[in-house]
């Protein structure tokens, strides 16, 4: 089989940081997805490591616990040959009372090039980006944004369906507390998809309609019409008060049961950012059904998307303008 013809990427990336999807243009999102498609090719090779970020140092600074996102970033950095250090809240001086800014300045003083941060407060990544020269990648800030998750969701949809514009995507469940939902909504709308949010009024307040999406109260209303159904995890850890009566009632109104899955269109994609609460958001059999479920593709694609994000944000630091000026001067 002949490889695809090389496709030059016309848009250039001019950002030091990746903080959220809301601030990105459709072209920038597409550039990230195209770059990720190329890095996915690297993952298919026998030797999966390339020297693109050799000599760079990346810190995974996870103030909130995370296994899959942190691991994914760590693998992405290692496949790009960067050196990686992991810091969790419990092992950092934050527990001794050091402020976020001081911890970050210490990291920068150690000449760290890229900081991947997850934090419980919205805006934490931006706070650092405005104060540090290092590239800051937001790996989730409170209920605000989780850009790489949205990018891997967009990547998976585009890969499986060939496009995003014109598709109808349902996001089901805990929208209020979900940074995944916010980032997804921005990304899907920017790329021309229709978005319907599904959930109880406590978790999906009507105020979301201002973002340009539809809100419905029962999963049964949308099963037959959607191209993609993205099921969010019920975030027990963020729900200090009761936002719905109980898991049984949640399943009966919003759970994607086997019976409901039969009503989906044959080409409908089922997505879930993980970790899955089997039997709550989704029946175990449905999650494992290869006909609809792309949950594991999402994980694979997450690696490619994160390699792309690290590569692009680092490439910004290469000082291209200076080189172009230099070129003109010597020519």
């Amino acid at each position, binding site marked *: 089989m002949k*490889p*695809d*013809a*090389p*496709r*030059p*990427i016309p848009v*250039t*990336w001019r950002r030091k940081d990746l903080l959220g999807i809301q601030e990105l243009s459709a072209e920038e999102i597409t550039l990230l997805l195209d*770059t990720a498609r*190329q*890095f996915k*090719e*690297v993952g*298919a*090779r*026998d*030797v999966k*490591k*390339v*020297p*693109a970020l050799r000599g760079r140092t990346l810190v995974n600074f996870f103030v909130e616990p995370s296994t899959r996102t942190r691991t994914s970033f760590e693998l992405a950095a290692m496949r790009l040959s960067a050196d990686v250090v992991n810091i969790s809240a419990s092992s950092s001086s934050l527990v001794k009372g050091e402020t976020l800014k001081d911890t970050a300045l210490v990291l920068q003083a150690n000449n760290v090039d890229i900081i991947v941060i997850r934090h419980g407060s919205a805006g934490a990544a931006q706070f650092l980006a405005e104060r540090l020269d290092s590239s800051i990648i937001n790996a989730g800030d409170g209920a605000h944004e989780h850009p790489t998750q949205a990018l891997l969701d967009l990547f998976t949809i585009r890969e499986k369906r060939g496009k995003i514009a014109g598709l109808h995507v349902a996001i089901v469940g805990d929208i209020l507390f979900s940074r995944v939902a916010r980032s997804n909504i921005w990304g899907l709308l920017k790329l021309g998809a229709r978005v319907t949010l599904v959930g109880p009024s406590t978790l999906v307040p009507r105020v979301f309609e201002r973002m340009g999406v539809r809100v419905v109260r029962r999963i049964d209303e949308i099963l037959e019409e959607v191209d993609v159904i993205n099921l969010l995890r019920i975030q027990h850890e963020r729900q200090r008060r009761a936002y719905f009566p109980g898991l049984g009632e949640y399943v009966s109104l919003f759970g994607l049961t086997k019976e409901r899955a039969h009503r989906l269109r044959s080409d409908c994609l089922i997505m879930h950012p993980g970790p899955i609460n089997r039997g709550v958001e989704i029946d175990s059999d449905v999650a494992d059904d290869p006909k609809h479920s792309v949950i594991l593709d999402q994980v694979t694609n997450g690696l490619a998307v994160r390699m792309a994000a690290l590569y*692009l944000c*680092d*490439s910004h*630091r*290469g000082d*291209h303008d200076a*080189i*172009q000026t*230099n*070129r003109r001067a*010597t*020519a």
Partner: protein
Amino acid sequence: MEARPYDDASAGTDAGRVQVMDAAEIGRTLRRMADEILERNGAQGVKKLALVGIHTRGVEVARRLCDLIEQTAGMRPAFGVLDISMHRDDLRRRARLTSIQPTRLPVDLESRTVVLTDDVFFTGRTVRAALDALGEYGRAPSIQLAALVDRGHRELPIRPDYTGREVETSPDDRVRVEFTPEDGDADAVWLSRGDART
């Protein structure tokens, strides 16, 4: 220090370009290169041979050399493609992102004589990157280099074992190799003068 381009055949084409090789000459040249590869490695050596094309047009050079060697020796060498985009030493200095292409190599690299192929040999930096990339897949007992055009201006102590044609250029010139059917109706090598002196 000036950031000099790689042996980059994808550079744009100018109106004032001159043809330095036509289809017939490219055909004859590749024929001769295939014979030289056979002569040096022996007809018995074909089963140990792997021709590995460097993206983009080195791939087509390798494919054609495989065809020609098969015609003569009755046996086809192994064929591979190599992406070097992430191994370039100017990766962070390029204004544009390079595109990543597939890498597919014969599994038994450790027992192969590898002939790296490229369309245009220029600074040598592409080949250096290719040697790095190849080295990650195994230790080939021997690596040789074949290039359809050698345009001079080496920056590294690397030179081809098999050269199709030497073309005198200035550093700012562009050499573009076109292969049917991807690039047009007829195989050709074009030289366009750089705009530095205008």
